[in-house]
Protein backbone atom coordinates (compact mmCIF):
# COMPACT_ATOMS: atom_id res chain seq x y z
CA UNK A 1 0.00 0.00 0.00
CA UNK A 2 1.24 3.45 -0.86
CA UNK A 3 0.75 6.02 1.87
CA UNK A 4 -0.51 9.28 0.36
CA UNK A 5 -1.36 12.70 1.72
CA UNK A 6 -4.98 11.54 1.89
CA UNK A 7 -4.05 8.91 4.47
CA UNK A 8 -2.34 11.50 6.64
CA UNK A 9 -5.31 13.82 6.38
CA UNK A 10 -7.66 10.99 7.33
CA UNK A 11 -5.53 10.10 10.35
CA UNK A 12 -5.27 13.69 11.53
CA UNK A 13 -9.02 14.18 11.06
CA UNK A 14 -9.66 11.14 13.25
CA UNK A 15 -7.23 12.44 15.88
CA UNK A 16 -8.82 15.88 15.75
CA UNK A 17 -12.31 14.43 16.12
CA UNK A 18 -11.24 12.32 19.10
CA UNK A 19 -9.79 15.44 20.70
CA UNK A 20 -12.91 17.50 20.01
CA UNK A 21 -15.16 14.73 21.34
CA UNK A 22 -13.03 14.43 24.45
CA UNK A 23 -13.23 18.17 24.99
CA UNK A 24 -17.00 18.22 24.60
CA UNK A 25 -17.88 15.09 26.61
CA UNK A 26 -15.37 14.85 29.45
CA UNK A 27 -16.07 16.88 32.58
CA UNK A 28 -12.52 17.07 33.92
CA UNK A 29 -10.69 20.31 33.18
CA UNK A 30 -7.35 18.49 32.89
CA UNK A 31 -8.76 15.98 30.43
CA UNK A 32 -10.21 18.90 28.47
CA UNK A 33 -6.71 20.43 28.34
CA UNK A 34 -5.26 17.13 27.13
CA UNK A 35 -7.98 16.93 24.47
CA UNK A 36 -7.02 20.37 23.21
CA UNK A 37 -3.39 19.22 23.02
CA UNK A 38 -4.51 16.23 20.96
CA UNK A 39 -6.36 18.55 18.60
CA UNK A 40 -3.26 20.71 18.22
CA UNK A 41 -1.14 17.64 17.47
CA UNK A 42 -3.58 16.63 14.77
CA UNK A 43 -3.00 20.09 13.30
CA UNK A 44 0.77 19.59 13.46
CA UNK A 45 0.50 16.24 11.69
CA UNK A 46 -1.54 17.85 8.92
CA UNK A 47 0.94 20.68 8.49
CA UNK A 48 4.03 18.51 8.36
CA UNK A 49 2.45 15.93 6.05
CA UNK A 50 1.17 18.65 3.73
CA UNK A 51 4.62 20.22 3.56
CA UNK A 52 6.14 16.83 2.70
CA UNK A 53 3.76 16.49 -0.26
CA UNK A 54 4.35 19.96 -1.67
CA UNK A 55 5.86 19.90 -5.18
CA UNK A 56 9.46 20.94 -5.62
CA UNK A 57 10.09 24.50 -6.73
CA UNK A 58 11.22 24.71 -10.37
CA UNK A 59 14.01 27.24 -10.74
CA UNK A 60 14.73 29.40 -13.79
CA UNK A 61 17.70 27.40 -15.11
CA UNK A 62 15.97 24.06 -14.72
CA UNK A 63 17.16 23.70 -11.14
CA UNK A 64 14.89 22.01 -8.65
CA UNK A 65 14.73 23.17 -5.06
CA UNK A 66 12.79 21.55 -2.22
CA UNK A 67 9.56 23.36 -1.27
CA UNK A 68 9.66 26.09 1.35
CA UNK A 69 9.33 24.56 4.83
CA UNK A 70 6.35 26.77 5.74
CA UNK A 71 4.39 23.85 7.20
CA UNK A 72 7.27 22.72 9.41
CA UNK A 73 7.79 26.25 10.68
CA UNK A 74 4.08 26.62 11.33
CA UNK A 75 4.15 23.39 13.35
CA UNK A 76 6.99 24.73 15.51
CA UNK A 77 4.98 27.86 16.20
CA UNK A 78 1.98 25.73 17.16
CA UNK A 79 4.14 23.71 19.56
CA UNK A 80 5.55 26.85 21.18
CA UNK A 81 2.18 28.53 21.55
CA UNK A 82 0.63 25.31 22.86
CA UNK A 83 3.25 25.31 25.61
CA UNK A 84 2.40 28.90 26.54
CA UNK A 85 -1.28 28.04 26.44
CA UNK A 86 -0.75 25.04 28.71
CA UNK A 87 1.17 27.21 31.18
CA UNK A 88 -1.65 29.73 31.44
CA UNK A 89 -4.27 26.97 31.40
CA UNK A 90 -2.69 24.96 34.20
CA UNK A 91 -2.36 28.12 36.29
CA UNK A 92 -6.06 28.81 35.80
CA UNK A 93 -7.01 25.21 36.64
CA UNK A 94 -4.79 25.37 39.72
CA UNK A 95 -6.37 28.58 40.97
CA UNK A 96 -9.81 27.06 40.37
CA UNK A 97 -8.76 23.95 42.31
CA UNK A 98 -7.46 26.02 45.24
CA UNK A 99 -10.80 27.75 45.64
CA UNK A 100 -13.16 24.89 44.85
CA UNK A 101 -11.17 21.72 45.69
CA UNK A 102 -12.13 20.11 42.40
CA UNK A 103 -11.16 20.30 38.73
CA UNK A 104 -14.51 19.12 37.43
CA UNK A 105 -16.02 21.59 35.00
CA UNK A 106 -19.57 20.85 36.16
CA UNK A 107 -18.53 22.34 39.51
CA UNK A 108 -18.13 25.64 37.66
CA UNK A 109 -21.76 26.61 38.18
CA UNK A 110 -21.66 29.85 40.17
CA UNK A 111 -22.20 32.03 37.14
CA UNK A 112 -25.41 31.33 35.28
CA UNK A 113 -28.64 32.94 34.14
Amino acid at each position, binding site marked *: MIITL*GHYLALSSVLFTIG*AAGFLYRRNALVALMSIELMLNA*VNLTLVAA*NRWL*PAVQGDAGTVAPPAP*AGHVFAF*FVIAVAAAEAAVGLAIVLSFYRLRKTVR*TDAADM*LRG
Partner: protein
Amino acid sequence: MNLVLLLSPILIPTVGALVLMMLDAFQKEDGGLAMPTALLHFTAAAMALALWQRGVPADTSALHGFLAIDKTSLFLDATIALGGGIASLLAGGYLAEHKLDRGEYYPLIAFSTAGAMLLVSASDMLMLFLGLETMSLGVYAMTGFRRGSPRSAEASLKYFLLGSFAAALMLFGSALLYAITGHTDYAGIAEVLHAAPAVVANDAAMALQFETRAKISILAMLLIVIAMAFKVGAVPFHMWTPDAYEGAPTSTMAYMSSVVKAAAFGAFARVMLAVYGDAASAGSAAGWPAMLAWVAVATMTVGNLVALTQTSVKRMLAYSSIAHAGYVLLGVIAAPREGTGTTAYASVLFYLLAYTVSNMGAVGALILAGRRGAESVSYDDLAGYARRHPAAGFAMTLFLLSLTGVPPTVGFFAKFYVIRATLDAGYTALALIAVVNSAVSAYYYLGVLVKMYMRDPAPGAAIATPMRSGYVTVAILTAAVFVVWMGVMPERWLDLAREAVSAATAAAPAAATAGGTTAP
Protein backbone atom coordinates in the same frame (compact mmCIF):
# COMPACT_ATOMS: atom_id res chain seq x y z
CA MET B 1 9.60 52.79 4.19
CA ASN B 2 11.45 51.87 7.28
CA LEU B 3 10.16 48.56 8.62
CA VAL B 4 10.28 49.71 12.23
CA LEU B 5 8.22 52.75 11.36
CA LEU B 6 5.74 50.64 9.43
CA LEU B 7 5.27 48.28 12.36
CA SER B 8 5.40 50.95 15.05
CA PRO B 9 1.71 50.72 16.08
CA ILE B 10 2.36 47.07 16.97
CA LEU B 11 5.90 47.53 18.28
CA ILE B 12 4.99 50.31 20.73
CA PRO B 13 2.72 48.17 22.92
CA THR B 14 5.07 45.17 22.57
CA VAL B 15 8.20 46.99 23.69
CA GLY B 16 6.15 49.05 26.15
CA ALA B 17 4.86 45.88 27.79
CA LEU B 18 8.42 44.69 28.35
CA VAL B 19 9.36 48.06 29.87
CA LEU B 20 6.25 47.95 32.07
CA MET B 21 7.30 44.51 33.33
CA MET B 22 10.68 45.89 34.33
CA LEU B 23 9.09 48.93 35.96
CA ASP B 24 6.77 46.64 37.89
CA ALA B 25 9.68 44.49 39.04
CA PHE B 26 11.68 47.44 40.34
CA GLN B 27 9.02 49.61 41.91
CA LYS B 28 8.57 49.29 45.64
CA GLU B 29 4.80 49.72 45.85
CA ASP B 30 2.11 48.51 43.53
CA GLY B 31 0.06 50.92 41.50
CA GLY B 32 0.98 53.89 39.40
CA LEU B 33 1.42 51.96 36.17
CA ALA B 34 -2.02 52.88 34.81
CA MET B 35 -0.93 56.24 33.45
CA PRO B 36 2.18 54.96 31.60
CA THR B 37 0.09 52.13 30.14
CA ALA B 38 -2.62 54.51 28.97
CA LEU B 39 -0.02 56.85 27.45
CA LEU B 40 1.58 53.87 25.71
CA HIS B 41 -1.75 53.00 24.12
CA PHE B 42 -2.54 56.56 23.10
CA THR B 43 0.96 56.86 21.58
CA ALA B 44 0.30 53.73 19.54
CA ALA B 45 -3.00 55.22 18.37
CA ALA B 46 -1.26 58.47 17.44
CA MET B 47 1.41 56.52 15.57
CA ALA B 48 -1.27 54.68 13.60
CA LEU B 49 -2.85 58.03 12.70
CA ALA B 50 0.54 59.50 11.73
CA LEU B 51 1.18 56.55 9.41
CA TRP B 52 -2.29 57.05 7.97
CA GLN B 53 -1.52 60.72 7.31
CA ARG B 54 1.82 59.96 5.77
CA GLY B 55 0.31 57.33 3.52
CA VAL B 56 1.05 53.65 3.60
CA PRO B 57 3.46 52.54 0.87
CA ALA B 58 1.97 50.31 -1.79
CA ASP B 59 5.05 48.11 -1.68
CA THR B 60 5.05 46.29 1.63
CA SER B 61 7.03 43.32 0.34
CA ALA B 62 9.36 43.65 3.34
CA LEU B 63 6.54 42.05 5.33
CA HIS B 64 6.61 38.99 3.04
CA GLY B 65 2.85 38.76 2.96
CA PHE B 66 2.64 37.97 6.67
CA LEU B 67 1.06 41.27 7.72
CA ALA B 68 -1.06 43.72 5.80
CA ILE B 69 -0.27 47.20 7.02
CA ASP B 70 -2.92 49.17 5.18
CA LYS B 71 -5.49 51.78 6.15
CA THR B 72 -7.94 49.10 7.27
CA SER B 73 -5.49 47.73 9.80
CA LEU B 74 -4.41 51.25 10.84
CA PHE B 75 -8.03 52.23 11.47
CA LEU B 76 -8.54 49.12 13.58
CA ASP B 77 -5.15 49.61 15.30
CA ALA B 78 -6.25 53.08 16.34
CA THR B 79 -9.60 51.73 17.57
CA ILE B 80 -7.88 48.99 19.56
CA ALA B 81 -5.28 51.36 21.01
CA LEU B 82 -7.95 53.88 21.99
CA GLY B 83 -10.00 51.15 23.66
CA GLY B 84 -6.93 49.72 25.36
CA GLY B 85 -5.94 53.16 26.64
CA ILE B 86 -9.37 53.79 28.11
CA ALA B 87 -9.36 50.29 29.63
CA SER B 88 -5.97 50.96 31.29
CA LEU B 89 -7.35 54.14 32.82
CA LEU B 90 -10.43 52.28 34.05
CA ALA B 91 -8.13 49.61 35.51
CA GLY B 92 -6.15 52.31 37.31
CA GLY B 93 -9.30 53.37 39.15
CA TYR B 94 -11.01 50.02 39.51
CA LEU B 95 -8.08 47.86 40.64
CA ALA B 96 -6.94 50.40 43.23
CA GLU B 97 -10.45 50.79 44.63
CA HIS B 98 -10.94 47.04 44.96
CA LYS B 99 -7.46 46.30 46.33
CA LEU B 100 -6.40 44.37 43.25
CA ASP B 101 -3.72 46.79 42.15
CA ARG B 102 -0.93 44.38 41.24
CA GLY B 103 1.44 45.63 38.59
CA GLU B 104 1.28 42.62 36.24
CA TYR B 105 -2.14 43.69 35.02
CA TYR B 106 -0.71 46.50 32.91
CA PRO B 107 1.86 44.54 30.88
CA LEU B 108 -0.91 42.00 30.27
CA ILE B 109 -3.12 44.72 28.77
CA ALA B 110 -0.26 45.97 26.61
CA PHE B 111 0.62 42.47 25.36
CA SER B 112 -3.02 41.76 24.59
CA THR B 113 -3.24 45.01 22.66
CA ALA B 114 -0.17 44.06 20.63
CA GLY B 115 -1.80 40.69 19.92
CA ALA B 116 -5.05 42.36 18.91
CA MET B 117 -3.16 44.59 16.46
CA LEU B 118 -1.34 41.59 15.01
CA LEU B 119 -4.71 39.91 14.64
CA VAL B 120 -6.28 42.73 12.62
CA SER B 121 -3.13 43.16 10.49
CA ALA B 122 -2.68 39.45 9.81
CA SER B 123 -2.71 38.42 6.18
CA ASP B 124 -1.32 34.96 6.83
CA MET B 125 -2.85 32.08 8.79
CA LEU B 126 0.25 31.83 10.98
CA MET B 127 -0.02 35.51 11.98
CA LEU B 128 -3.75 35.13 12.53
CA PHE B 129 -3.05 32.31 14.97
CA LEU B 130 -0.20 34.14 16.73
CA GLY B 131 -2.22 37.33 17.09
CA LEU B 132 -5.24 35.44 18.37
CA GLU B 133 -3.21 33.60 21.00
CA THR B 134 -1.12 36.61 22.07
CA MET B 135 -4.31 38.56 22.61
CA SER B 136 -6.23 35.75 24.29
CA LEU B 137 -3.52 34.52 26.69
CA GLY B 138 -3.27 37.98 28.24
CA VAL B 139 -7.02 38.30 28.53
CA TYR B 140 -7.39 34.84 30.15
CA ALA B 141 -5.00 35.95 32.88
CA MET B 142 -6.76 39.31 33.27
CA THR B 143 -10.10 37.51 33.64
CA GLY B 144 -8.82 35.43 36.52
CA PHE B 145 -7.07 38.40 38.08
CA ARG B 146 -9.20 38.44 41.24
CA ARG B 147 -7.33 35.45 42.57
CA GLY B 148 -9.30 34.95 45.78
CA SER B 149 -12.66 34.93 44.06
CA PRO B 150 -14.15 31.62 42.91
CA ARG B 151 -16.30 33.51 40.42
CA SER B 152 -13.27 35.08 38.79
CA ALA B 153 -11.50 31.70 38.64
CA GLU B 154 -14.58 30.10 37.14
CA ALA B 155 -14.93 32.86 34.55
CA SER B 156 -11.34 32.48 33.42
CA LEU B 157 -11.59 28.67 33.35
CA LYS B 158 -14.63 28.78 31.09
CA TYR B 159 -13.13 31.48 28.89
CA PHE B 160 -9.81 29.68 28.63
CA LEU B 161 -11.25 26.26 27.76
CA LEU B 162 -13.65 27.53 25.10
CA GLY B 163 -11.14 30.04 23.76
CA SER B 164 -8.46 27.37 23.32
CA PHE B 165 -10.98 25.03 21.72
CA ALA B 166 -11.88 27.76 19.23
CA ALA B 167 -8.20 28.41 18.50
CA ALA B 168 -7.71 24.69 17.80
CA LEU B 169 -10.65 24.73 15.37
CA MET B 170 -9.19 27.72 13.59
CA LEU B 171 -5.79 26.07 13.38
CA PHE B 172 -7.17 22.88 11.88
CA GLY B 173 -9.00 24.98 9.30
CA SER B 174 -5.72 26.75 8.43
CA ALA B 175 -3.81 23.46 8.29
CA LEU B 176 -6.37 21.99 5.90
CA LEU B 177 -6.13 25.07 3.70
CA TYR B 178 -2.36 24.69 3.67
CA ALA B 179 -2.73 21.03 2.75
CA ILE B 180 -4.89 21.78 -0.28
CA THR B 181 -3.21 24.95 -1.50
CA GLY B 182 0.39 24.87 -0.28
CA HIS B 183 0.03 28.44 0.98
CA THR B 184 -0.51 29.97 4.38
CA ASP B 185 -0.97 33.57 3.21
CA TYR B 186 -4.50 34.69 2.36
CA ALA B 187 -3.65 35.86 -1.17
CA GLY B 188 -1.85 32.65 -2.04
CA ILE B 189 -4.61 30.47 -0.61
CA ALA B 190 -7.29 32.38 -2.50
CA GLU B 191 -5.29 32.20 -5.73
CA VAL B 192 -4.99 28.41 -5.68
CA LEU B 193 -8.42 27.84 -4.16
CA HIS B 194 -10.32 29.72 -6.84
CA ALA B 195 -8.18 28.71 -9.81
CA ALA B 196 -9.95 26.74 -12.52
CA PRO B 197 -9.65 22.92 -12.21
CA ALA B 198 -7.48 22.63 -15.33
CA VAL B 199 -4.93 25.10 -14.01
CA VAL B 200 -4.62 23.21 -10.77
CA ALA B 201 -4.31 19.87 -12.53
CA ASN B 202 -1.50 21.15 -14.76
CA ASP B 203 0.17 22.66 -11.75
CA ALA B 204 0.22 19.13 -10.31
CA ALA B 205 0.37 20.94 -7.04
CA MET B 206 -1.33 18.47 -4.86
CA ALA B 207 -1.68 14.77 -4.42
CA LEU B 208 -5.42 15.22 -3.90
CA GLN B 209 -8.37 15.05 -6.27
CA PHE B 210 -9.97 18.35 -7.22
CA GLU B 211 -13.36 17.26 -5.81
CA THR B 212 -11.76 16.26 -2.51
CA ARG B 213 -10.05 19.62 -2.34
CA ALA B 214 -13.33 21.47 -2.85
CA LYS B 215 -14.88 19.52 0.03
CA ILE B 216 -11.90 20.16 2.29
CA SER B 217 -12.06 23.84 1.42
CA ILE B 218 -15.67 24.01 2.62
CA LEU B 219 -14.79 22.12 5.80
CA ALA B 220 -11.92 24.54 6.47
CA MET B 221 -14.24 27.50 5.94
CA LEU B 222 -16.74 26.06 8.42
CA LEU B 223 -14.01 25.52 11.01
CA ILE B 224 -12.73 29.09 10.63
CA VAL B 225 -16.24 30.58 10.78
CA ILE B 226 -17.09 28.59 13.92
CA ALA B 227 -13.82 29.60 15.59
CA MET B 228 -14.38 33.26 14.81
CA ALA B 229 -18.01 33.02 15.94
CA PHE B 230 -16.69 31.73 19.29
CA LYS B 231 -14.31 34.67 19.55
CA VAL B 232 -16.88 37.35 18.74
CA GLY B 233 -19.49 35.67 20.94
CA ALA B 234 -22.07 34.87 18.26
CA VAL B 235 -24.97 32.53 19.01
CA PRO B 236 -24.84 29.48 19.26
CA PHE B 237 -21.19 29.81 20.36
CA HIS B 238 -21.84 32.50 22.96
CA MET B 239 -22.20 30.35 26.11
CA TRP B 240 -18.94 31.53 27.63
CA THR B 241 -19.58 35.25 27.07
CA PRO B 242 -21.95 36.23 29.91
CA ASP B 243 -20.14 34.05 32.45
CA ALA B 244 -16.69 35.31 31.53
CA TYR B 245 -17.83 38.93 31.50
CA GLU B 246 -19.68 38.69 34.80
CA GLY B 247 -16.95 36.91 36.72
CA ALA B 248 -14.08 39.01 35.37
CA PRO B 249 -12.94 42.20 37.09
CA THR B 250 -15.06 44.99 35.54
CA SER B 251 -12.08 46.69 33.91
CA THR B 252 -11.23 43.39 32.18
CA MET B 253 -14.83 43.12 31.07
CA ALA B 254 -14.53 46.54 29.45
CA TYR B 255 -11.45 45.36 27.55
CA MET B 256 -12.91 42.00 26.54
CA SER B 257 -16.23 43.32 25.34
CA SER B 258 -14.77 46.16 23.28
CA VAL B 259 -11.18 45.63 22.20
CA VAL B 260 -11.17 41.85 21.88
CA LYS B 261 -14.45 41.96 20.00
CA ALA B 262 -13.26 44.70 17.63
CA ALA B 263 -10.05 42.78 16.90
CA ALA B 264 -11.85 39.50 16.32
CA PHE B 265 -14.35 41.14 13.97
CA GLY B 266 -11.59 42.95 12.09
CA ALA B 267 -9.72 39.69 11.53
CA PHE B 268 -12.93 37.81 10.71
CA ALA B 269 -13.95 40.27 7.99
CA ARG B 270 -10.45 40.32 6.51
CA VAL B 271 -9.97 36.56 6.37
CA MET B 272 -13.43 35.89 4.93
CA LEU B 273 -13.13 38.58 2.27
CA ALA B 274 -9.55 37.69 1.34
CA VAL B 275 -9.86 33.91 1.26
CA TYR B 276 -13.55 33.34 0.54
CA GLY B 277 -14.47 36.66 -1.06
CA ASP B 278 -14.94 35.14 -4.52
CA ALA B 279 -18.35 35.09 -6.19
CA ALA B 280 -18.89 31.35 -5.70
CA SER B 281 -18.29 31.32 -1.93
CA ALA B 282 -19.75 34.71 -1.08
CA GLY B 283 -22.35 35.37 -3.72
CA SER B 284 -24.68 32.43 -4.03
CA ALA B 285 -27.56 31.60 -1.73
CA ALA B 286 -25.51 28.74 -0.29
CA GLY B 287 -22.38 30.76 0.46
CA TRP B 288 -21.11 31.92 3.82
CA PRO B 289 -23.12 35.19 3.92
CA ALA B 290 -26.34 33.16 3.83
CA MET B 291 -25.06 30.96 6.65
CA LEU B 292 -23.92 33.98 8.68
CA ALA B 293 -27.33 35.59 8.16
CA TRP B 294 -28.91 32.86 10.29
CA VAL B 295 -26.17 33.28 12.88
CA ALA B 296 -26.79 37.04 12.93
CA VAL B 297 -30.54 36.62 13.43
CA ALA B 298 -29.98 34.15 16.26
CA THR B 299 -27.29 36.35 17.82
CA MET B 300 -29.38 39.53 17.83
CA THR B 301 -32.55 37.83 19.02
CA VAL B 302 -31.09 35.61 21.73
CA GLY B 303 -28.81 38.38 23.01
CA ASN B 304 -31.66 40.87 23.32
CA LEU B 305 -34.28 38.49 24.70
CA VAL B 306 -32.00 37.11 27.41
CA ALA B 307 -30.78 40.61 28.26
CA LEU B 308 -34.40 41.51 29.03
CA THR B 309 -34.53 39.01 31.87
CA GLN B 310 -31.32 40.07 33.65
CA THR B 311 -31.25 41.63 37.11
CA SER B 312 -27.54 42.45 36.99
CA VAL B 313 -26.47 45.41 34.88
CA LYS B 314 -23.08 43.80 34.31
CA ARG B 315 -24.67 40.64 32.93
CA MET B 316 -27.16 42.71 30.94
CA LEU B 317 -24.21 44.49 29.29
CA ALA B 318 -22.72 41.06 28.51
CA TYR B 319 -25.87 39.95 26.70
CA SER B 320 -26.15 43.33 25.02
CA SER B 321 -22.61 42.83 23.71
CA ILE B 322 -23.81 39.56 22.15
CA ALA B 323 -26.69 41.44 20.52
CA HIS B 324 -24.28 44.08 19.20
CA ALA B 325 -22.11 41.33 17.71
CA GLY B 326 -25.23 40.38 15.75
CA TYR B 327 -25.54 43.91 14.35
CA VAL B 328 -21.87 43.95 13.31
CA LEU B 329 -22.38 40.61 11.57
CA LEU B 330 -24.95 42.31 9.33
CA GLY B 331 -22.21 44.50 7.93
CA VAL B 332 -19.88 41.54 7.46
CA ILE B 333 -22.63 39.69 5.56
CA ALA B 334 -23.16 42.65 3.22
CA ALA B 335 -19.43 43.30 2.71
CA PRO B 336 -18.65 40.88 -0.16
CA ARG B 337 -21.46 42.34 -2.32
CA GLU B 338 -20.21 43.97 -5.51
CA GLY B 339 -20.64 47.75 -5.54
CA THR B 340 -22.25 48.30 -2.15
CA GLY B 341 -19.76 46.10 -0.33
CA THR B 342 -17.24 48.86 0.36
CA THR B 343 -19.73 50.94 2.31
CA ALA B 344 -20.84 47.82 4.17
CA TYR B 345 -17.27 47.01 5.18
CA ALA B 346 -16.82 50.67 6.20
CA SER B 347 -19.97 50.44 8.33
CA VAL B 348 -18.40 47.48 10.15
CA LEU B 349 -15.32 49.54 11.02
CA PHE B 350 -17.51 52.47 12.05
CA TYR B 351 -19.62 50.19 14.25
CA LEU B 352 -16.56 48.69 15.93
CA LEU B 353 -15.18 52.12 16.85
CA ALA B 354 -18.62 53.36 17.94
CA TYR B 355 -19.28 50.27 20.04
CA THR B 356 -15.82 50.43 21.58
CA VAL B 357 -16.29 53.97 22.90
CA SER B 358 -19.96 53.54 23.90
CA ASN B 359 -19.39 50.27 25.68
CA MET B 360 -16.17 51.43 27.36
CA GLY B 361 -18.08 54.44 28.63
CA ALA B 362 -21.02 52.40 29.92
CA VAL B 363 -18.76 49.95 31.74
CA GLY B 364 -16.72 52.90 33.02
CA ALA B 365 -19.85 54.54 34.40
CA LEU B 366 -20.72 51.24 36.08
CA ILE B 367 -17.23 51.10 37.62
CA LEU B 368 -17.66 54.67 38.84
CA ALA B 369 -20.88 53.70 40.62
CA GLY B 370 -19.17 51.07 42.78
CA ARG B 371 -17.03 51.49 45.86
CA ARG B 372 -14.81 49.03 47.65
CA GLY B 373 -16.87 46.13 48.96
CA ALA B 374 -19.97 47.53 47.29
CA GLU B 375 -19.78 47.05 43.55
CA SER B 376 -23.03 48.27 42.04
CA VAL B 377 -23.87 45.57 39.56
CA SER B 378 -27.64 45.08 39.84
CA TYR B 379 -30.45 47.32 38.68
CA ASP B 380 -31.60 47.72 42.31
CA ASP B 381 -28.18 48.98 43.39
CA LEU B 382 -28.58 51.93 41.04
CA ALA B 383 -32.00 53.05 42.34
CA GLY B 384 -32.07 56.82 42.68
CA TYR B 385 -28.37 57.05 41.73
CA ALA B 386 -28.77 59.74 39.08
CA ARG B 387 -30.83 61.96 41.36
CA ARG B 388 -28.20 61.84 44.08
CA HIS B 389 -25.25 62.15 41.69
CA PRO B 390 -26.43 63.98 38.55
CA ALA B 391 -23.08 64.09 36.76
CA ALA B 392 -22.25 60.41 37.21
CA GLY B 393 -25.84 59.52 36.36
CA PHE B 394 -25.71 61.63 33.23
CA ALA B 395 -22.55 59.86 32.05
CA MET B 396 -24.26 56.49 32.40
CA THR B 397 -27.33 57.87 30.60
CA LEU B 398 -25.30 59.15 27.65
CA PHE B 399 -23.57 55.82 27.06
CA LEU B 400 -26.71 53.74 27.51
CA LEU B 401 -28.56 55.98 25.03
CA SER B 402 -25.69 55.44 22.61
CA LEU B 403 -25.92 51.68 23.06
CA THR B 404 -29.67 51.89 22.53
CA GLY B 405 -29.15 53.88 19.36
CA VAL B 406 -30.78 57.21 20.16
CA PRO B 407 -29.68 60.16 18.00
CA PRO B 408 -27.54 62.27 18.16
CA THR B 409 -25.25 59.75 19.87
CA VAL B 410 -22.91 57.65 17.77
CA GLY B 411 -24.81 54.44 18.49
CA PHE B 412 -27.69 55.59 16.32
CA PHE B 413 -25.52 56.18 13.28
CA ALA B 414 -23.61 52.95 13.77
CA LYS B 415 -26.85 50.97 13.66
CA PHE B 416 -28.20 53.14 10.86
CA TYR B 417 -25.18 52.51 8.64
CA VAL B 418 -25.09 48.73 9.09
CA ILE B 419 -28.83 48.44 8.54
CA ARG B 420 -28.63 50.64 5.45
CA ALA B 421 -25.78 48.48 4.15
CA THR B 422 -27.91 45.39 4.76
CA LEU B 423 -30.79 46.93 2.80
CA ASP B 424 -28.48 47.98 -0.04
CA ALA B 425 -27.22 44.42 -0.30
CA GLY B 426 -30.80 43.22 -0.64
CA TYR B 427 -31.30 41.53 2.73
CA THR B 428 -34.60 43.24 3.56
CA ALA B 429 -35.85 40.68 6.07
CA LEU B 430 -32.54 40.80 7.91
CA ALA B 431 -32.69 44.59 8.18
CA LEU B 432 -36.25 44.39 9.49
CA ILE B 433 -35.27 41.89 12.17
CA ALA B 434 -32.41 44.19 13.20
CA VAL B 435 -34.78 47.16 13.57
CA VAL B 436 -37.21 45.14 15.69
CA ASN B 437 -34.33 43.89 17.83
CA SER B 438 -33.05 47.39 18.29
CA ALA B 439 -36.48 48.44 19.55
CA VAL B 440 -36.57 45.52 21.98
CA SER B 441 -33.14 46.46 23.31
CA ALA B 442 -34.42 49.91 24.28
CA TYR B 443 -36.49 48.25 27.01
CA TYR B 444 -33.57 46.97 29.07
CA TYR B 445 -31.27 49.95 28.52
CA LEU B 446 -33.98 52.39 29.49
CA GLY B 447 -34.80 50.17 32.47
CA VAL B 448 -31.50 51.30 33.98
CA LEU B 449 -32.41 54.96 33.39
CA VAL B 450 -35.83 54.46 35.00
CA LYS B 451 -34.15 52.94 38.06
CA MET B 452 -31.58 55.72 38.25
CA TYR B 453 -33.96 58.63 37.83
CA MET B 454 -37.34 57.50 39.11
CA ARG B 455 -36.88 54.88 41.81
CA ASP B 456 -35.74 55.13 45.40
CA PRO B 457 -33.51 52.51 46.97
CA ALA B 458 -35.34 49.89 49.02
CA PRO B 459 -35.18 50.60 52.75
CA GLY B 460 -32.02 49.15 54.24
CA ALA B 461 -30.43 48.50 50.83
CA ALA B 462 -26.89 49.67 50.09
CA ILE B 463 -26.86 53.15 48.57
CA ALA B 464 -24.58 53.48 45.55
CA THR B 465 -22.07 56.30 45.84
CA PRO B 466 -19.58 57.02 43.11
CA MET B 467 -15.93 56.30 43.81
CA ARG B 468 -13.47 59.11 43.44
CA SER B 469 -10.86 58.46 40.82
CA GLY B 470 -9.22 60.79 38.38
CA TYR B 471 -8.40 57.84 36.12
CA VAL B 472 -12.00 56.73 35.74
CA THR B 473 -13.18 60.31 35.21
CA VAL B 474 -10.63 60.89 32.44
CA ALA B 475 -11.56 57.54 30.84
CA ILE B 476 -15.27 58.40 30.85
CA LEU B 477 -14.63 61.88 29.50
CA THR B 478 -12.49 60.48 26.67
CA ALA B 479 -15.20 58.00 25.73
CA ALA B 480 -17.89 60.71 25.99
CA VAL B 481 -15.95 63.02 23.66
CA PHE B 482 -15.91 60.32 20.98
CA VAL B 483 -19.56 59.36 21.51
CA VAL B 484 -20.67 62.95 20.99
CA TRP B 485 -18.09 63.91 18.35
CA MET B 486 -18.82 60.90 16.15
CA GLY B 487 -22.53 61.41 16.75
CA VAL B 488 -22.43 65.04 15.65
CA MET B 489 -20.44 64.49 12.47
CA PRO B 490 -21.02 60.83 11.56
CA GLU B 491 -20.56 61.30 7.81
CA ARG B 492 -16.99 62.47 8.26
CA TRP B 493 -16.14 59.41 10.34
CA LEU B 494 -17.89 57.14 7.88
CA ASP B 495 -15.83 58.71 5.11
CA LEU B 496 -12.69 57.89 7.08
CA ALA B 497 -13.84 54.30 7.44
CA ARG B 498 -14.64 54.21 3.73
CA GLU B 499 -11.17 55.52 2.92
CA ALA B 500 -9.71 52.82 5.17
CA VAL B 501 -11.56 50.12 3.26
CA SER B 502 -11.12 51.37 -0.29
CA ALA B 503 -7.37 51.70 0.22
CA ALA B 504 -7.35 48.07 1.30
CA THR B 505 -9.16 46.84 -1.78
CA ALA B 506 -6.87 48.88 -4.05
CA ALA B 507 -3.78 47.46 -2.38
CA ALA B 508 -4.95 43.86 -2.69
CA PRO B 509 -3.20 43.04 -5.99
CA ALA B 510 0.05 44.42 -4.64
CA ALA B 511 -0.27 42.11 -1.65
CA ALA B 512 -0.87 39.18 -3.97
CA THR B 513 2.34 39.77 -5.87
CA ALA B 514 4.31 40.50 -2.73
CA GLY B 515 5.14 36.82 -2.57
CA GLY B 516 3.78 34.05 -0.43
CA THR B 517 5.54 31.74 1.92
CA THR B 518 6.50 29.37 -0.87
CA ALA B 519 8.64 31.99 -2.58
CA PRO B 520 12.26 30.81 -2.42
